[in-house]
């Protein structure tokens, strides 16, 4: 069995999806949470000067979605064949598209522009993606996004809505299948405990 170490800051951000994959697969890993003051020294040892970084028996892998995809393949959470793997990828990329819009609000400093962006998020962007994922669940039988069991797609969508839901806890209320998927994940062993007890972070 390989030894895994995931290095990232002590928040959800770009590291959380990989952590969720480990938890969903019930696999051990060193959850190396790096403090801000220690990051500058560590930076040079990373492949591209960023985190998260996954260390697998001494070999390093960078880029959050690359890491999540690799782990999903290792732990049979990437669909049953190449086409299902592609479907998982599709959902990760859709979440990424949603995240790009969400990030605009986060980085905008001008208060007026920020208000506009947030309005667009709640009236256009989130309904669009919520609707898209709800419809996808319906089309796939209602329980999971890809195939008949939990996959990286479900974890990616779960993770993608963590911060938006923190800011607006009611945003999923009209999307029963998405809501049910969230509850289903929260009720699964190991990952359920992790989600219940993990500390809150802004992002």
């Amino acid at each position, binding site marked *: 069995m390989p030894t895994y170490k995931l290095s990232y800051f002590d928040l959800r951000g770009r590291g959380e999806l990989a952590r969720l994959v480990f938890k969903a697969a019930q696999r051990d890993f060193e959850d190396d949470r790096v403090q801000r003051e220690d990051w500058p020294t560590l930076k040079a040892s990373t*492949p*591209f*000067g960023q985190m998260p970084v996954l260390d*697998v028996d001494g*070999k390093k*892998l*960078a*880029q*959050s*979605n*690359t*890491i999540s*995809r*690799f782990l999903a*393949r*290792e732990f049979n959470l990437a669909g049953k064949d*190449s*086409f299902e*793997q*592609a*479907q998982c*990828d*599709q959902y990760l*990329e*859709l979440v990424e598209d949603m995240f*790009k819009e969400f990030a605009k609000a986060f980085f905008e400093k001008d208060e007026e522009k920020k208000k506009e962006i947030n309005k667009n998020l709640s009236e256009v962007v989130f309904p669009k993606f919520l609707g*898209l994922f709800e419809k996808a669940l319906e089309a796939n039988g209602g329980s999971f996004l890809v195939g008949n069991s939990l996959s990286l797609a479900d974890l990616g969508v779960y993770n993608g809505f963590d911060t938006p839901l923190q800011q607006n806890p009611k945003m999923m209320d009209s999307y029963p299948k998405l809501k049910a998927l969230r509850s289903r994940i929260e009720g699964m062993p190991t990952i359920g405990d992790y989600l219940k007890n993990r500390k809150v972070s802004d992002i």
Partner: protein
Amino acid sequence: CTDFSNHSPLLKIATMPSYKLYYFDVRGRGELIRYVFLAAGKEFDDIRFTSEVWKEHKPKAPYGQAPFLEIDGKPLAQSNTIARYLAREFGLAGKDSWEQAKIDELLDLSEDMFKEVGKPIFEKDEEKKKELLKNLTDVVYPKFVQLFEKSLTANGGKFFVGNELTLGDLAVYCAFDTPLKSSPNLMDDCPNLKAQRSMVEGLPKLAAYLKTRKDSHI
């Protein structure tokens, strides 16, 4: 002509799927997919359209966007998803899961650079646009060109992953198509990256396409 459809499953396996790529008549988010088909020597229907004609195809797109690919009629969306899937189908995805991940790293890194490249293109304010373009040439391109050179050199200098051409090589090649138009010298301090680019351009299956391809802004 005899109908073999009820005969040996081996005959079914031998049939190639039909591929239809739907995208605008520019490089943009479709070009990497085209490179994969060409490099692998696989046939595909390269459906290109204007914004007007897009309205007709849009209802078929899984999430209302292009590019999308139809594989024997089954749709797949998202440019990098499509490129990864085809690379796996055509043996351009590395020899194992780790190599596949090393290739993914390059696609994700290219995506990081692409996000920056897009900013001045979409910026309407002329002053801000100038600033963003300057930032691209002075900060962003040098940063990424060094990261890619380092990665390539660490793998021996010829191919980005393993010992042969993979999606990784095509993705990095594609990522610099637009930047090199405005900054033709950006690879001058990166001998391996420059040589890798010539190598990709020289591939017989790509060379003819690249020579006759019409110019596009993005």
